[in-house]
């Protein structure tokens, strides 16, 4: 489902003496439907960078990143957008929303984007928000004013609203209490059970052990850096 071959990434900082930073080199990995792979490695090893590249957010210098058979490195923006809408979900560490939009609509939006009717999408959104223990009185408010943990749960609800065949999870259980952590882990297990291919970053080792089938240490793709 997710298939990377010989992917490399460098940053060129034109405004800082054109410094070239090699971040990742020759990454190859495959995630099958129903499989969950954890990315590990020290901070700065490039876990988030790799995840962002798979999402098309960072541009790869070479190699192929195939999601559902489409190579995102060679794709037009509209093709990447279509993949993101229908195939590839991404739960980032931070919630980024239009101010003023009610939480319920924030969560329902991915469903509306794939053409689901407003009522049906909201019903599904309500389910998820309830599961994640967001009090109902907050649903009509914008999540921009919520606490960090609440924002993270809204973000997860939004990420799991549409049953994507492939998912990227960046620290989904960070800053959650035990009960909510349990809800998120069961959401991940359900997604796996329906056949989603998942790549995750988990600092929470117990969580990692519970949901992940294998681990990939990103450090081994990191070029040896001077200093």
């Amino acid at each position, binding site marked *: 489902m997710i298939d990377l071959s010989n992917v490399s990434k460098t940053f060129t900082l*034109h405004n800082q003496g054109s410094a070239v930073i090699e971040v990742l080199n020759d990454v190859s990995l495959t995630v099958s439907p129903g499989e969950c792979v954890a990315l590990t490695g020290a901070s700065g090893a490039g876990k988030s960078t790799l995840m962002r590249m798979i999402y098309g*957010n*960072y*541009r790869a210098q070479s190699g192929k990143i195939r999601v559902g058979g489409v190579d995102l490195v060679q794709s037009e*923006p*509209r093709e990447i*957008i279509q993949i993101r809408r229908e195939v590839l979900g991404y739960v980032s560490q931070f919630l980024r929303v*239009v101010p003023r*939009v009610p939480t319920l609509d924030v969560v329902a939006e991915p469903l509306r984007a794939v053409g689901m009717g407003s009522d049906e999408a909201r019903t599904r959104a309500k389910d998820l928000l309830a599961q994640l223990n967001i009090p109902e009185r907050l649903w009509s408010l914008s999540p921009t004013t919520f606490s960090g943990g609440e924002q993270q749960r809204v973000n997860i609800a939004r990420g799991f609203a549409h049953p994507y065949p492939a998912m990227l999870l960046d620290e989904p259980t960070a800053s959650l209490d035990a009960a909510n952590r349990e809800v998120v882990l069961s959401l991940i297990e359900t997604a796996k059970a329906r056949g989603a291919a998942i790549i995750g970053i988990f600092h929470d080792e117990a969580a990692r052990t519970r949901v992940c089938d294998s681990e990939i240490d990103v450090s081994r793709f990191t070029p040896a850096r001077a200093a």
Partner: protein
Amino acid sequence: MTPLISVKDITKSYGAHIGCADVSFDLYPGEVMGIVGESGSGKSTLLNCMAGHLRPDAGSVVFDTRGHGPRDTVTMSEPERRMLSRTDWAFVHQHARDGLRMGVSAGGNVGERLMAVGARHYGDIRDKAVDWLERVEIDAGRVDDRPTTFSGGMQQRLQIARNLVTGPRLVFMDEPTGGLDVSVQARLLDLLRGLVRDMGLSAIIVTHDLAVVRLLANRLMVMKDGQVVENGLTDQVLDDPQHAYTQLLVSSVLQV
């Protein structure tokens, strides 16, 4: 899939000064493209060339018309082009005053495009106008008030209603949130996002506000000195800019 609008080698000079040079891109149905760049980078010149307000020195702007398929709007006759701008195109000006008739009621402003394409039933026109006022979150009770009595944000929303009432397929926007309070901007952005999604609109948005394009545009074109320096997925261009100028632009934004 046929591009909705296909821009090829658009060049426009003002004497020795280059407005924009050799700009080419395809925009597909449902896509929202942002064009960013500092003042004088040629983004407004490009927008006006595409919308038929300026005649480019060279190049073509091929639009996939409803009736006759792809047609070059640069070489088509003026009546045809003006008809397009009343039906399939919409243009949202930075200053609502440039896009509204200030001496005409809100309902009349919204109804004008309907009447321009032949609507002759007062009751129907008014019902549509009221419906559109509500869609842009203006109280239906204000339908007979003139835009001079509206706040800046309301005027901008009225301008949007007036433009979208005939169900255009392509909306040109020139700094649509410029000059508005931040809180009003957010509301307008939310509204535009919803309309773009629900109506399946394509849009080309010129702005210098990177936050606006991040929220509204799927793809982004960065211009400098009349040239396109970078082009791609909006978040990719903003988060992983490749060109020196884009890196400078992105790093110059103040963080809140």
